[in-house]
């Protein structure tokens, strides 16, 4: 069986700026998989989407989508992929319903023929079907863009940062929708800068500056990238952060919500008393310290520190 997406040694540089967007990039995504590209701005996510949807050419390397070559068989690919770009790209002056009909027509089909696939999402838009797309809220625009990307029953769906700037509740709902689509057999490649969303994917690739830092399941990535780590808090969190960074055995220390995560230098024999004495001597009160497991952002920070 073909993989949904197969990428081999892709390289892409933008000549004007000289920016190297992707460097010797390879990745295999199985049929029916919900695959996440996790990485910050500048990781190369959008460039990869544009290459796979046949909008730009790589400098080097090959890729296949649903078995079709991105260069020789671009017209085959364009018929069977759905693409939701990061930037809202629907017609602002057309209504919700007009946009949907337009995209169906472009793909030689009708809204009615494919309504099953979008029904769950479209019912939420129905009350506003006569509203112009440009007048919708962020969350509603996102739902409409997803409907338009789905209206020709694509085999592979590309979603470029669909949840950026979206609040936590709407983000959760969006991922629930993706679960539904996956169950209908659509392969999905989705990118996000929110690392907690990695947990919603079958597998993920952590990306930084055009390179793959790691590929695995969410649990797999956490499991193999564990390092001894402490979570600390005290009455004065900002001072605590500065002081922990000055502690001689500190490899690095960053804030994680209500606590700071501290990674000690490799080979340092951890003695809790030593650290406590150090902090108490600096006047810290109400210190709470416990051993913890690395979260996805800890792992990302760890891996990206190795790339420099």
């Amino acid at each position, binding site marked *: 069986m073909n993989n949904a997406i197969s990428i081999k040694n892709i390289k892409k540089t933008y000549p004007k*700026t000289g920016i190297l967007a992707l460097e010797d990039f390879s990745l295999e995504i199985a049929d029916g998989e919900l695959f996440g590209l996790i*990485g*910050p*701005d*500048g990781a190369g996510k959008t460039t990869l989407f544009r290459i796979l949807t046949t909008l730009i050419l790589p400098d080097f390397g090959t890729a296949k989508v649903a078995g079709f070559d991105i260069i020789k068989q671009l017209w085959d690919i364009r018929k069977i992929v759905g693409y939701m770009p990061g930037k809202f790209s629907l017609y602002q002056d057309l209504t919700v319903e007009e946009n949907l009909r337009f995209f169906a027509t472009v793909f030689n089909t009708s809204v009615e023929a494919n309504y099953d696939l979008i029904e769950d999402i479209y019912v*939420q838009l129905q009350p*506003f079907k006569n509203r112009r797309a440009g007048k*919708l*809220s*962020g*969350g*509603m625009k996102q739902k409409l863009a997803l409907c338009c990307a789905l209206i020709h029953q694509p085999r592979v769906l590309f979603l470029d*940062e669909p949840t*950026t*700037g*979206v*609040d*936590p*509740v*709407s*983000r*959760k709902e969006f991922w629930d929708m993706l679960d539904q689509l996956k169950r209908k057999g659509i392969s999905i490649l989705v990118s996000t*800068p*929110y*690392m907690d969303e990695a947990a919603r994917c079958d597998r993920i690739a952590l990306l*930084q500056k055009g390179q793959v830092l790691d590929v695995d399941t969410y649990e797999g990535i956490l499991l193999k990238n564990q390092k001894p780590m402490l979570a600390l808090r005290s009455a004065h*969190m*900002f001072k605590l*952060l500065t002081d922990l960074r000055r502690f001689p055995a500190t490899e690095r220390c*960053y*804030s*994680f*919500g*209500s606590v700071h995560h501290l990674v000690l230098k490799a080979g340092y024999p951890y003695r809790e008393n030593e650290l406590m004495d150090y902090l108490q001597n600096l006047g810290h009160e109400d210190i709470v310290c416990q051993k913890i497991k690395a979260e996805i*952002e800890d792992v*990302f*920070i760890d891996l*990206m*520190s190795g790339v420099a």
Partner: protein
Amino acid sequence: MNKLITIETRDLTKRFGNFTAVDAISFKVYEGEIFGFLGANGAGKTTAMRMLCGLLTPTSGQALVAGYDIYRQPNQLKAHIGYMSQKFSLYPNLTARENMTFYAGIYGMKRKEIGDKVHSLIKSLGVEKYSDMQVHNLPLGWKQKISFMTAIIHNPKIVFLDEPTGGVDPITRRQFWDMIYEAADRGITVFVTTHYMDEAEYCDRVSMMVDGAIAALDTPEALKTRYSVASMNDVFIQLARKANRSAV
């Protein structure tokens, strides 16, 4: 307590036609405080923030920001606040140095003063090697740091940050918060919106808007205790679920 109040609103309301975007919100923010302004998309955060910045006239209610009345003194008010949005803060075709110099001039700083200030900011940020590149060529993380420094170049009493960290990598995101802490340490009040709930934990107090009203306002610790949950993410979800109006 003798904490100085930098923002005070009473029943601040904004209606568009028969739609009440902001519904009688009353709250206080203190000097040097990091105040997180949370809410779902469409809850009314941007409208409230635009009123506090003197960009939008309220329908009713009162507000004093940095000591100025938002109805009668919107222009004096603007001179004493800084504002940074994710979408537009810097001129892409100007360099970091030019952007800072330009904004400092707009805020009425003196020529001599501007040169020194820009020089010291660039040095403190460690962006010497980027300071003469057009900002559109810079990585997003640097743009955001430079935007923040530009927003506080005139030593405002309050800086408003609208989703300042969207899309940046986890290290840069934390470095950005180090800058926020330092600014607050110097006495600048920080009023910030974010969709990263771990960042809500960094705030001294947070408010949560639901359907145009403030549904809760307290320290992150107190909110987590009140709703018996472990994280601000869960607090957010509990409160936002109570919303009646969908984000339209």
